[in-house]
């Protein structure tokens, strides 16, 4: 590729903020060489925001680390170079490297809590940067630190300076990290999943902050994330990474509206679009799973999972073709020209990246738009699901408090709700809102302090231990973490067998086990495996099969898919929908991802600070009039809709502690529509916006509607 190099430099004299050329990175583990990045080439112009998307394990973070010359000790750069502002990073001396880091490039990390030194005051950590890069005195540095904290809009910077990381909320911590990164105005800012793990509203704050900062600092941004919405919102250009290869690249808007690589298309199709429901369309899953590191790949890295793969794709890997232009036809031409002479591909065909052109690593970019839909519409209407009027589950005035030393935390306060057969009740809310506690009270993993759980007319005993085997069989649970949901010591079959033994209703145990595994699409050969040999998706499928071992009436799903990659998540959601259609089971579905909840739920409940503040049909809850908090939540979701002009509602302050919830309306401390004293003093009434749609607020429905109508709901984009 040395031929390419002069061309690039000749094309534009202004050196790119980041210029990665044919980068090959290999990790060495247990004597094996595992290529992670295979000839990645990308270029970020000064001040440009570049999004790098892809599922976990495709090499995003490795790329970032290589760019900062901070590969793990077992990782090596085998080929290619990384130039930052024209300087080859690998050539920097240690001292130069040290100064370069922080001054030229800076990074914001995924987990802010872990990224901050636990035993050092915030002030010192931020001040460090000034002391060691600008040689300021401690006092001077602290003054500057204070400024930069103010710059990231941290409340009461002076106090914050004196705090320790654990004393700050996740959002504040991330602000501190950003403040540190921007302290000495780097020219390149690397954001590695900056909002993953943060709550929706906090995520929104951080995004607002980053956008707002971009206006002032002129750093180029490399945003690494699996969240397409984020990229759509922040970045001009985006590169899609798959198995260590850039498979498509181009302007964000075009890529997301008109993808030219099957993988990109797959990604777009498998996330539920904002406002989309299971009855509208099925999520298009990507067949198969990501190739494991070091797994040998024939031809196109994606061919194994590509629904439109042709023999040629397996025979020979396509280059990164420009689109439009030679992409389609040339791809075809080459596909026809069999067997392809390697000589036939002179370097200049592989258009150098960087210019505003689009590129896709596919012979058949032209056909991507017509990529076949594999999964049919699955969900039938509630009625078709035989949803009876009678409630399967009724929860009345449920209260549960925990003690933390002397403090008393109310995790669930006076929650009442009901659920019909075959219905899916979605439960949304930020972390700490009490979703999971509520769910565990239902299943009996936690005993409520007061309140009742009635199931099919019979009141349930508080704890699972004291419930009848039938009650247990009827109410099962699917947990969040695929890695701990299955007993690592048991073979998959043993796990299912045991479940069937305890919960099943007679008949051949093995037959039932085989049926279950077939229902959740786990091939029999995996049944002899231990969970450690299964992929996250498979584990979660087995977990679901386990829950269905006794043909339950109600399954509580606690974030069943949020730990999984989007493509896998889609298949899990589809599976749940399918099972529901076949088994008439009811779900309580917990998730912090509103789009997902909206997609899978028939009715939705919104929780805030242990209270259920709004309940209604999915449709109603997602559209005005709705609780101001719901409104804020919705506004905070980044969407792929470029036409989306909703003004984002920034909530004030941070989530109050459960130990001393605010008086009156619990939301008043952060509410953007607060009416003043009344909200502070009086507990809001439950108002009915529509039959079956209620919310807790002082503002009557019509006023809310008026106020909220201005911001029209986001319309789903058809791919």
């Amino acid at each position, binding site marked *: 590729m040395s031929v390419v190099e002069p061309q690039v430099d000749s094309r534009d004299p202004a050196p790119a903020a980041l210029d990665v050329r044919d980068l090959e990175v290999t990790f060495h583990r247990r004597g094996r060489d595992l290529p992670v990045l295979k000839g990645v080439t990308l270029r970020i112009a000064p001040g440009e925001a570049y999004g790098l998307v892809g599922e976990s394990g495709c090499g995003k973070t490795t790329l970032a680390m290589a760019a900062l010359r901070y590969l793990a000790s077992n990782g090596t750069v085998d080929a290619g170079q990384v130039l930052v502002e024209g300087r080859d990073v690998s050539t920097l001396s240690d001292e130069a490297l040290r100064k370069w880091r922080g001054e030229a490039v*800076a990074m914001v990390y995924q987990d802010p809590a*872990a990224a901050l*030194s636990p*035993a*050092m005051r915030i002030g010192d950590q931020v001040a460090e940067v000034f002391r060691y890069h600008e040689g300021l005195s401690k006092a001077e540095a602290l003054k500057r630190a204070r400024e930069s904290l103010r710059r990231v809009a941290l409340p009461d910077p002076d106090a914050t300076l004196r705090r320790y990381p654990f004393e700050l909320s996740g959002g504040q911590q991330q602000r501190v990290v950003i403040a540190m990164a921007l302290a000495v105005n780097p020219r390149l800012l690397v954001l590695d999943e900056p909002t993953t793990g943060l709550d929706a509203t906090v995520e929104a704050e951080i995004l607002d902050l980053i956008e707002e900062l971009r206006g002032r600092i002129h750093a180029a941004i490399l945003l690494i994330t699996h969240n397409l919405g984020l990229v759509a919102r922040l970045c001009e250009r985006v590169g899609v990474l798959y198995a260590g290869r850039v498979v498509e690249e181009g302007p964000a808007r075009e890529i997301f509206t008109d993808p030219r690589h099957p993988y990109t298309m797959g990604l777009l199709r498998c996330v539920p679009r904002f406002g989309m429901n299971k009855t509208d369309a099925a999520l298009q899953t990507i067949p198969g799973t990501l190739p494991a590191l070091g797994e040998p790949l024939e031809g196109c890295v994606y061919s194994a999972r590509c629904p439109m793969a042709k023999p040629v794709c397996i025979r020979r890997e396509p280059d990164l073709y420009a689109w439009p232009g030679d992409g389609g036809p040339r791809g075809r031409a080459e596909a026809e020209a069999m067997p392809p002479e390697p000589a036939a591909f002179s370097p200049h065909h592989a258009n150098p990246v960087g210019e505003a052109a689009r590129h896709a690593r596919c012979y058949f970019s032209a056909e991507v738009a017509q990529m076949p839909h594999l999964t049919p519409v699955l969900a039938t209407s509630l009625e078709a699901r035989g949803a009876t009027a009678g409630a399967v589950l009724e929860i009345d005035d449920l209260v549960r408090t925990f003690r933390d030393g002397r403090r008393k935390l109310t995790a669930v306060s006076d929650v009442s709700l009901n659920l019909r057969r075959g219905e899916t009740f979605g439960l949304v809310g930020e972390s700490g809102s009490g979703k999971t506690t509520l769910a565990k009270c239902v299943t009996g993993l936690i005993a409520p302090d007061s309140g009742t759980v009635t199931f099919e007319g019979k009141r349930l005993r508080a704890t699972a231990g004291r419930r009848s085997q039938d009650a247990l069989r009827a109410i099962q649970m699917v947990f969040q973490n695929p890695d701990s949901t299955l007993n690592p010591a048991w073979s998959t079959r043993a796990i299912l067998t045991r479940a069937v033994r305890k919960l099943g209703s007679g008949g051949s145990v093995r037959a039932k086990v085989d049926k279950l595994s077939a229902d959740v699409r786990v091939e029999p050969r995996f049944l002899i495996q231990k969970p450690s040999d299964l992929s996250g998706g498979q584990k979660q499928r087995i977990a679901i099969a386990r829950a269905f071992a006794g043909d339950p009436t109600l399954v509580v799903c606690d974030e069943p898919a949020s730990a999984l990659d989007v493509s896998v998540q889609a298949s899990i959601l589809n599976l749940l929908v399918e099972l529901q259609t076949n088994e008439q089971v009811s779900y309580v579905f917990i998730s912090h991802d509103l789009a997902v909840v909206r997609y899978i739920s028939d009715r939705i409940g919104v929780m805030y600070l242990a209270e259920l503040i709004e309940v209604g049909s999915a449709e109603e809850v997602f559209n005005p009039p709705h609780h101001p908090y719901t409104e804020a939540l919705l506004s905070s979701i980044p969407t792929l809709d470029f036409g989306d002009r909703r003004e984002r509602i920034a909530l004030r302050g941070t989530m109050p502690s459960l130990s001393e919830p605010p008086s009156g309306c619990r939301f008043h401390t952060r509410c953007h529509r607060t009416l003043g004293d009344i909200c502070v003093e009086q507990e809001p009434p439950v108002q009915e916006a529509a039959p079956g749609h209620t919310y807790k607020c002082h503002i009557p429905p019509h006023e809310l509607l008026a106020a909220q109508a201005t911001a029209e709901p986001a319309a789903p984009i058809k791919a």
Partner: protein
Amino acid sequence: MARLIGRRLLLMVPTLILVSILVFALAEVLPGNLGRFILGPYATQSAVDQLNHNLGMDKPIYTRYVEWAGHFVTGHWGTSYQYTTSVFPLVMRALGNSLLLAGFALVIIVPTSILVGVYAGLRRDSILDRAITISSLSMTVIPEFVSGVILIVVFAVTLHWLPVQAMPPQGSPFIDRFYYLILPAIPLMLLELGYIARMARVGTVQVLNMPYVRTAVLKGLPRRRVIFGHVLRNALVPTVTVIGSQIGWLIGGLVVVETLFNYPGIGNYMVNAALNHDLPLLEACVLVVAVLYMLSNLIADIVVAFLNPRIRMGG
């Protein structure tokens, strides 16, 4: 911080009571017949019964415990059967000697072992690291009496560099004591050094893999700042805890070393008391050691709290 210490001290009380019950149970209940234990296998039963009566053995256990514990709290530790003198001053003098020895050993061990360990951790997988790890392991496992015996022969008898006995002659200046303590201290050091060093190494290695160290590096901080500012402080937390708990083994070592060097420390007295059925002395020694041990753990906790703001503020 003060509140934390106060809380910990309070927490010590129940444990202390339990420990005393334990010692009481072990010493006065377990053998079933204290009189027999004191008088030995050849005493006539009547004599044994008489003694038991005098010792109040026929009283109910709890009253006996209360009296016993009461005496300890009020410093009436009884009279040693062997030396026919009051136990309290005896034990206190011994304790002083032991503390001097142990302290002397620790003062040298702690910094060196931490230094060595951290260094190994920073130079992970280097030849030096390997050497340190292996040698520290082997040091840890050689019993004190083995190393002690060999040291004596080499340094005291053959080379005449150091005195064999651990006590300087009467009337020599206090400072001399340290010179005499060098030889006894070494076996203790070997034992602990290896262990603490390993801990320090592990701690360092772990911290080096922490994201916040990456942050520090990518902030462009100089290496030494990264190490002293970010790595060390956090790496030492487990080490300190270990040092606290290692005191137990150190005391175990004291018993051996003091016997070996005929050093009038609490370990030596304890062994003699045990060998000679001198129960009051034995009980006193064990209790004192227990308290000592708990205090050392307390100190460790406090240091940890100092290193870790979260605990400090939580406390």
